[in-house]
């Protein structure tokens, strides 16, 4: 999963809210729907996007589907932020070298 797919999945406020509710524990679609002013198919659609981004996992039990947060789902985003956290200080050193080489 790429950081950009996760950022995209998180760009929707309803999906962020769904994810936050699921952080409290596994829930069925109908239980989840209770907290939102949107239809069950819409919630299912959001869950499909979150699943596609690796942020939630589905468990099926008979006709019912339950969803929970995938704990490792945000690791690509953390990796991405970590990459740039290291990137800028190292590039500042190069900028200093460049400034020494440049003419006034």
């Amino acid at each position: 999963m790429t950081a950009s797919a996760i950022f995209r999945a998180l760009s929707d406020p309803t999906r962020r809210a769904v994810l936050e509710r699921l952080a409290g524990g596994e829930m069925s679609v109908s239980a989840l729907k209770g907290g939102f002013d949107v239809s069950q198919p819409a919630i299912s659609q959001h869950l499909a996007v979150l699943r596609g981004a690796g942020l939630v996992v589905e468990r099926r039990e008979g006709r019912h589907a339950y969803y929970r947060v995938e704990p490792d789902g945000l690791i690509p985003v953390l990796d991405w932020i970590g990459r740039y956290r290291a990137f800028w200080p190292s590039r500042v050193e190069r900028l200093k070298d460049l400034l020494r080489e440049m003419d006034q």
Partner: protein
Amino acid sequence: MTSKASENEIVVDCELDAPPGKVWRALTVPELLDAWLAPEAPGARIDRRLLAAEPNRSLRYGWREERPGETGVDSVVTFHLVETDRGGTRLRIVHGEFSITMMAANCNIAACLRWAA
């Protein structure tokens, strides 16, 4: 130099032994920018798009790094320049606005990040 990263932005502060006008050139002339910012990863390239500029003071670039097999993340890099008493430049680099909408006020991304910790 100090750096910190919160859930939604990375901030780096440093002091440079060059006046703002010279630092400004290193931040705006494409060949000079490439000299210190070109990506190292094989096949990677960075899309920089100038969003706003206040000469010798601040610059905003739309920033997107593309690597092979990986879609880039849209973000914004802002440079702030302040002249120091000694004629140098205090430079602050802020890298944030990752995919913009994620930063919406109601996004409790801190909570999301805690789950992943």
